[in-house]
């Protein structure tokens, strides 16, 4: 009798729908009486979320990530594009003196001693790492804010590279910081594209049923026949590489996932009494769908969107790594990782740190997704 389980994530559990249905559906029913004056109690899922250590960890990571994106020029010690071929592949925590032992300007001396966090020592001179140091000028928000004060750095005729430099002598840390927005941007835009098309598609398919459902589901099946990253690769191969196309490709690749998810949720919600009531009161189907059904399937959509951010960032980095995504000199993390591959044995830090950054951000979104699911669906 039972159909084989297709996939764990495709169909949301009834409880996930139930939790939101109770809260939103209840509010819907009370709608006329509860004006703006009526105080709503804090929903139970939000209390659960605030107590969950997983949620706290996830939101902390994402918050940190957002801060880095927002204040990148201030936080980064150097410009992401400034290169110096004399100081390529400098290992992490090592400083490079701008003045050589003979006094020539710009000579890279290797005898700069390693010193952990405290700073850099050249001969007898010590250059500590300090907060709020004057460095290169930067501008922020389309040149609205300009300054030469940076969050941290070394004062003196010294360049100090916390995470080392890449093949062109660019500061790896600064590039990571300046590249953070690319990951965020790809994630957000592709999730928006996927949800904007996938949600209505799945909702209409599930709500109307019949021929519409059949056509939409075959379409979704076709897209799902391209596993994982393959659909994004196909789209990029067709329409060309580059950041914009990656965003669109990863977004389109997530359409079938949203469509499947929302269809399943709508199928179970459309039998509820309040939908029946809306029908009985003479509402036509589209207003019913968008006014009564969709608000009650938001919970799985929100959970999926957080997990989808993680997937999108991984996919985009993968495409960058394959040379199908961002183009140099963009500080995209996957692309940076790929550059580090050629001199892996000589300068392992060039490949290591971009990967760590990806893991951290993806982990953040996965944690939040898991925590949201736990909070919205206490049975799991």
């Amino acid at each position, binding site marked *: *009798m*039972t159909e*084989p*389980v*297709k*996939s*764990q994530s495709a169909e949301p559990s009834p409880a996930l729908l139930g939790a939101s249905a109770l809260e939103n559906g209840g509010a819907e029913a009370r709608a006329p009486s509860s004006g703006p004056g009526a105080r709503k109690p804090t929903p139970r899922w939000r209390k659960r979320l605030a107590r969950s250590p997983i949620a706290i960890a996830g939101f902390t990571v994402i918050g940190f990530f957002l801060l880095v994106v927002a204040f990148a020029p201030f936080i980064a010690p150097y410009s992401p594009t400034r290169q110096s071929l004399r100081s390529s592949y400098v290992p992490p925590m090592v400083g490079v003196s701008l003045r050589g032992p003979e006094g020539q300007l710009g000579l890279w001396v290797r005898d700069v001693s390693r010193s952990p966090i405290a700073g850099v020592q050249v001969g007898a001179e010590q250059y500590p790492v300090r907060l709020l140091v004057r460095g290169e000028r930067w501008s922020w928000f389309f040149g609205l804010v300009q300054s030469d004060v940076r969050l941290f750095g070394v004062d003196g005729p010294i360049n100090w590279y916390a995470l080392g430099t890449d093949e062109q002598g660019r500061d790896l840390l600064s590039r990571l910081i300046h590249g953070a927005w690319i990951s965020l941007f790809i994630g957000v835009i592709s999730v928006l594209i996927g949800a904007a098309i996938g949600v209505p598609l799945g909702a209409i398919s599930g709500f109307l049923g019949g021929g519409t459902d059949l056509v939409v589901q*075959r*379409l979704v*099946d*076709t*897209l*799902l*026949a*391209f*596993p*994982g*990253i*393959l659909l994004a*690769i*196909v789209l*990029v*191969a*067709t*329409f*060309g590489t580059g950041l914009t196309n990656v965003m669109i490709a990863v977004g389109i690749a997530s359409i079938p996932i949203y469509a499947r998810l929302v269809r399943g949720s709508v199928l179970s919600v459309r039998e509820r009494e309040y939908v029946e009531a809306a029908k009985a009161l003479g509402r036509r189907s589209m207003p019913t769908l968008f006014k009564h059904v969709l608000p009650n399937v938001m919970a799985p959509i929100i959970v999926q969107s957080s997990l989808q951010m*993680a997937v999108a960032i*991984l996919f985009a*980095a*993968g495409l960058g*790594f*394959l*040379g*199908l995504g961002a183009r140099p000199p963009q500080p995209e993390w*996957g692309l940076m*990782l790929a550059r*580090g*591959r050629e001199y*892996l*044995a000589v300068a*392992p830090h060039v*490949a*290591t740190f*971009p*990967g760590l950054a*990806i*893991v951290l951000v*993806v*982990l953040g979104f*996965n*944690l939040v997704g*898991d925590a949201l699911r736990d909070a919205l669906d206490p049975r799991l």
Partner: protein
Amino acid sequence: MFQYALRRVLISIPSIFGVILIVFLMVRLAPGDPALLLAGEFADEATIELIRERFGLNRPTHEQFGIFIVNLAQGDLGRSTRTNREVTADLRQFFPNTLELALGAIVIAFAIGIPAGIIAALRQNTWADLLVMFGALIGVSMPVFWFGLLAILYFSVQLGWFPVAGKGTLGHLVLPAFSLGIGSMAIIARMTRSAMLEVLSQDYIRTARAKGVVWNRVVLKHAFRNAMVPVVTVGGLQFGTLMAGAVLTETVFTWPGIGRLLVDSILARDYPVVQGAVLLIATSFIVINIVVDTLYGLIDPRIRYD
């Protein structure tokens, strides 16, 4: 079961048709003259004209699609613009390698994921459980290509245990298969844990313990076998996903598989090979999922296909 398999195949026909359509459209929607894309950048006028004639590129689109399907049915996908080899010959050469890699990956994923999940379930809410669950979370959050690079750096370059890249001995397979399998491993471990937890709370487990069956035996004989049903299904479906994941892994380890062939062909704008590789990966994904779905009935006799 045969009937079910048949129905599953019938349901998949529109999907396969859709895949063919998308692959067909790839070249037509890509910027540039399709004939030029299929003939390659350095082709002379005569070759381009020949290609145009052969694929009917000067005829209406629906006729082109018909020609495409007829050619496909005859196993004719054109020739590579780089090597001038038959695309089907390329696919036949590279596909078994990808299959080998994916098989290795799924074996490793099951071999590590299942014990890890069982331990986590038996020691629920202890540090062992926490460790496994955190490891699984890292496993799904990690870019495979990054893990692959670090594995090469540590195990091949520094320790010298495995070859750096390429294919040949079993040693060549270990690192790529492990990197590719790590995501599936994480999913299988999570799945095993939750399935075991659910089974262990069932009445028949309590009964078995009450009648004095040794705990280890309860776990292995009574709980494990019942918990495996969903795990094997989800794990089996992972196998299809691995075919696509191989694209990244094969690039890192320069593994001569179909994924690397695909990426190289995209970068070289070798469209006939791109079409063939995409078609093959997507179709094998569909076929593998049908097989897994059907085999599901073999491990769980409670399931009736009707």
